[in-house]
């Protein structure tokens, strides 16, 4: 069953075609990597899938909803209910503790629960750092808080933009192990990356160049190792 369908998607900024007639489907429970050099359209595609931008033409179906025609208010609601976002820069709120950063996502989704937020931090191995401010956490720890925040509302799709881009090898492996566990638990994950090692862990890799899909590759490790 397809969770996401991109049909003939284009995104044009002035004279620049960031995405050019893209077709792509992602199945429920699939782990997909999107690769490509800078300016290839990776971030644009992520913004459209993440309901933070709309395509110039084409349709995007997320969990059966055509998000390409929804207004800003509806897109906010879809983003809140169906998507967990993970960022390269973590984007934690610097005056809130780790557990509070997780609870913020709950607050705008439903009801914040410190118990559930602590459980989410436990899943990423950060229970002991729950009361620390982001400035007191390492880059890897901050990224794990970001993952806990993305998971807290049980999203249909986890969308990660260069999740290991700012991490050393040790922390990169910790984060990838978390993704593997999430995948085993049945989560649908889309990872935007320029790192072939990270992409290799996904089941499928889509390569973008100049706004076009130039290659779709089934990976040997298939994300389940």
């Amino acid at each position, binding site marked *: 069953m397809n969770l996401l369908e991109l049909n003939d998607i284009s995104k044009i900024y002035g004279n620049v075609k960031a995405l050019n007639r893209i077709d792509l489907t992602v199945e429920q429970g699939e782990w997909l990597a999107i690769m490509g050099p800078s300016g290839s359209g990776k971030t644009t595609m992520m*913004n459209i899938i993440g309901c933070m*931008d709309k395509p110039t033409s084409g349709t995007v179906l997320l969990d059966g909803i055509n998000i390409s025609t929804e207004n800003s208010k509806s897109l906010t609601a879809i983003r809140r209910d169906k998507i967990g976002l993970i960022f390269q*820069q973590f984007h934690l709120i610097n*005056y809130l503790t780790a557990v*509070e950063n997780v*609870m913020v996502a709950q607050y705008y989704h439903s009801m914040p629960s410190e118990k559930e937020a602590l459980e989410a931090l436990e899943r990423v191995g950060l229970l002991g750092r729950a009361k620390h401010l982001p400035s007191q956490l390492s880059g890897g720890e901050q990224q794990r808080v970001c993952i806990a*925040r993305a998971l807290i509302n049980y999203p249909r799709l986890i969308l990660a933009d260069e999740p290991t881009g700012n991490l050393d090898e040790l922390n990169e492996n910790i984060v990838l192990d978390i993704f593997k566990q999430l995948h085993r638990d049945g989560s649908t994950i889309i990872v935007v990356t320029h790192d072939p090692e990270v992409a290799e862990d996904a089941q499928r890799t889509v390569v973008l160049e100049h706004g076009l899909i130039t290659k779709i590759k089934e990976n040997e490790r298939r994300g389940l190792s």
Partner: protein
Amino acid sequence: MFFRMIRGALFRQKGKMLMIAFTIALGASLATAMLNVMLDVGDKVNQELKTYGANINVLPKGASLLDDLYGDEEAETGESNQYLQESELGNIKTIFWAFNIVDFAPYLDVNVRLNAGADEVRVVGTWFSEHLNLPTGESLDTGMASMKDWWDVSGDWPDDADASSAVVGSALAEKNGIRTGDTIEISGAGGAKSLRVAGIFSAGGDEDEQMYVPLSVAQELSNRAGLVSRVEVSALTTPDNELSRKAAQDPKSLSVKEWETWYCTAYVSAICYQIDEVLTDSIAKPIRQVAESEGAILEKTQFLMLLITILSLVGSALGISNLVTAGVMERSQEIGLLKAIGARSVSVSWLVLTEILITAVIGGAAGYFIGIGFAQIIGHSVFGAAIAIKPMVVPIVAALVFIVTLAGSIPAIRLLQALRPAEVLHGR
């Protein structure tokens, strides 16, 4: 969670919030100081202006008519046969605006011969510092000594109870070779008196050619016991407006409501009216030049204060606007993130506004107390007296701080609402 976020923002971003609180405190302190001074400046300026003399002249009805027809000429000859009763003068301090009556002094003019000379000299009987026991049970000291305190007196003012002393105008003293401590002889219709010169005064006007004696002496010399020819009153008044001008022309032309408003406001015309009510056959008239100048100075001073208050609040609003907008720009990624994880623009706006309003309450409260301090500094340095703290300033300043903070936050809220998560989180 909302309040945990607010608490986090306030306590973990102290520097930014203190800067906003400081700006609000500055505006609030200036508004508090200026409003307190503005509301109290009327009394302060009035008191300052009282040093320039009386602003109400009370005459007997008949003398007033002569005065209207012939100007000061008749009054100056002292030939009017109309008088006021000295025994009624204490009633002036029983009118509705009794507390606004600062001083008053009666006068009785008598023409006498000095040291058996050929020329007549004007002697004015008056109170210098008369102690009055009022019908209300209160008492006060009033008279020329306080009403004419800018007169330069060499020696002393006479004692009202001492019927053998006088003060002599400098021109008269020079013309007749009189010095302080000399004894002079004066004679009038009521007989002759020997007086000791307690002092020589210089008023800079016609008064310098006259001599002032206790009222009882003038009454004895003119055979007019218990009578006075006019009274000068110094009163604290409210500047004239359309209503008071209408009332001054004819109080009967006012509606009941207008009449009540006029009567219960310290307009010079209302005080004159009330003096007329308590002194038999009297006409109290404002000395227009003085009353109008006082009103004009007061109005201009209050307008200046109001202008400074408005400018300080506008400056504060601009400061808040810049700080909050800069704060929102600085927090654009945080705001973008909140929107990205599902917060609606209105929710984020409430969050930021609540932070700013709490900061405004803290800054406003601090500013209020600082402003009271500023008001006292202004009061002591300009008027040499404390400024009375008006409770009504508290709600006014609170409302102003609220409005200024909201107005100053509008550009930041508009910026915040226009922020798109994709643009701030991915730099697109």
